[in-house]
């Protein structure tokens, strides 16, 4: 009997996860992220676990209830690589018996060959040919998705009508998800490019330019950050968010030269690598500062060690360069309204600074 495979929500990246999950069985998209997801995750997690742990655990519970029996988890770097074993035990203690949790970490997927072996163990009937086709398609879709949404985040502020713009984006993601091969996916992305230009013609009004940096999950998952990208756009900012899944994979496979470049960019605020996404956060923020951006939003889950590690560097960067950095710590208590208010106040402040500069 074929297995039912599911994975946690991660922004729109289901588009890239689906072809991979499909190698292992029938795909069950995780049920939509709701207050219930968060409540289930929080109630069953260790108190001091970080927000991504709680939300992904909530996803797993809802996926199991919907009939999944193979759960995919991934991670490495901080405590993320250890999620799998702990979440599996929690789920078993909750009474779920007939499932497997496959955690893709540096221990079993440090190289492409190791990754292939891991997939093969999970589904012995899988051929290398099918695997290579699925992974290639997932990779292509991922690249198209990240490139297209990167552009969308910059253009959103120029949208003639925000709801209409968001509908175009949603439709694009759905079509990309449904595309059966690379050619079809590329056509979808090309069409989206044209639609974007119509929905949000670049106007010469002086939009703010704001960078978003920080911990990966917190930066990309809208239910964790309460639609940070969208709120920034609605309050008048072109959003530049270099934190994407493509960027994470580039760095993981990029080797030491990538890290040296990041440390060059982070100088003089960091001299050494500080773990997971922390080094990137300082490097990107410093790059935005040098490129004349209006400000940066630094997001992290509450207690995220790599991101707390860089707070002193961020604070010094902000102080010495008089560069606005909004630091957001996300936990289960943050609300949509709380987020909106903070983003609104930040954008207002950035506009006042611009006006003061123009007149001063």
């Amino acid at each position, binding site marked *: 009997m074929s297995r039912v495979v599911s994975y946690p929500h991660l922004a729109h990246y289901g588009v890239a996860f689906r072809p991979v999950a499909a190698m292992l069985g029938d795909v069950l998209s995780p049920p939509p992220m709701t207050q219930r997801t968060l409540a289930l995750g929080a109630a069953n997690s*260790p108190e001091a676990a970080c927000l991504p742990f709680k939300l992904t655990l909530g996803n797993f519970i809802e996926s199991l209830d919907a009939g999944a029996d193979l759960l995919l988890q991934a991670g490495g770097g901080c*405590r993320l*690589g*250890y999620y799998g074993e702990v979440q599996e*035990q929690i789920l078993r203690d909750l009474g779920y018996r007939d499932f497997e949790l496959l*955690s893709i970490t540096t221990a079993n997927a440090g190289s492409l060959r190791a990754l292939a072996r891991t997939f093969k163990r999970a589904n012995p009937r899988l051929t290398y040919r099918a695997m290579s086709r699925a992974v290639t398609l997932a990779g292509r879709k991922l690249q198209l998705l990240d490139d297209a949404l990167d552009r969308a985040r910059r253009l959103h502020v120029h949208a003639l009508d925000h709801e209409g713009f968001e509908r175009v984006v949603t439709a694009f993601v759905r079509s990309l998800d449904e595309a059966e091969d690379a050619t079809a996916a590329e056509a979808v992305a090309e069409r989206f490019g044209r639609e974007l230009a119509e929905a949000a013609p670049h106007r010469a009004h002086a939009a703010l330019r704001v960078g978003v940096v920080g911990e990966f999950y917190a930066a990309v998952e809208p239910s964790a950050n309460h639609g940070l990208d969208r709120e920034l756009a609605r309050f008048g900012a072109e959003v530049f968010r270099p934190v994407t899944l493509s960027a994470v994979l580039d760095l993981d496979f990029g080797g030491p030269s990538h890290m040296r470049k990041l440390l060059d960019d982070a100088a003089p605020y960091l001299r050494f690598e500080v773990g997971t996404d922390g080094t990137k956060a300082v490097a990107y923020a410093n790059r935005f500062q040098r490129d004349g951006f209006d400000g940066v939003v630094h997001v992290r889950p*509450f*207690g995220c060690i790599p991101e707390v590690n860089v707070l002193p560097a961020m604070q010094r960067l902000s102080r010495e360069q008089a560069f606005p950095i909004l630091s957001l710590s996300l936990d289960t208590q943050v609300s949509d309204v709380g987020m909106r208010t903070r983003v609104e106040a930040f954008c207002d402040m950035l506009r006042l600074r611009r006006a003061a500069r123009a007149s001063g």
Partner: protein
Amino acid sequence: MFHRQHERLRVGVPQSLLYHRYGTLWTSFVEGLGHEAIVGPRSNMSLARTGAALAPDETCLPFKLHLGHVAAIADRCDVVLAPRIASVRRGEENCVRFKVAYDAIANLLPNVRVETYTVDVGERVRERRELVDLGRRLGAGTWRAHVSYERARRRQRRHERDTASVALDALRAPGDGPRLLLVGHAYNVADDLVGVPIVRMLTAMGARPIPADALVPATKRGAGNALSASVYWTYSRELLAVIAQFAEEVDGIVFLMTFPCGPDSLVTDLAIRRLRHIPTLNLVLDDLDGLTGLQTRLESFVDIVAARSRAAV
């Protein structure tokens, strides 16, 4: 002879964080180079307040204390030692907190001269090479740095063996009172504001607390796999190995964790879920003023453990 003359420096070694693990290595190495090792004071409230004021809010308690320790000795030395111990074993890591040891001080206490070295076995950055380089940066010749390192390493090993045998004796000494394994990072258990008051309270209640971290050299590596197969933090693996190996010889286990600890937040939860046959107590400390509130929790735990072992007899 072999020794080039160089300026004698006062090298500050704060008595916090991994001092409780590698302190002998560090002081012996510094002295071998011909410098003076200035070991800082033990934790006290004034230093704790300084650290808490310096650190960003979500910093863990031991790192806040550490910053206070650095600030407390900075005036008395020419340079402060702030090692980055990222990974000490192949395929394993330490908490990423230790990676920021240098940069946190450089950013928060810009007037302090800091020297560092990195151990990151996963990235092939090894202790010997890094400490010899550090020795040379501090003015010693290569030969002398090597000799100092070798001697420091031997002393460190001997110190660990001695501590382990003291702990083993304590564990196996005859006598009444429930034996409690106190499981926590060395820098928490040995800290005057964190673990020491708890040990004192437990002792006053008639229990016999045994620090798990001291037993590490007496355990087999991998013994903790039964408690968690995939945990990759070295210090957590070691503590789990101690639990797996010595749980039979104690009456209860007290987990001591400081907030917010990334590794412990998950490891402790999993361990308690899997340790069903022995009483456990999970203490989470997030600030230092509330220690007296622990008195009642400790008392009732000691009572339960004592009643349980009487029933077993």
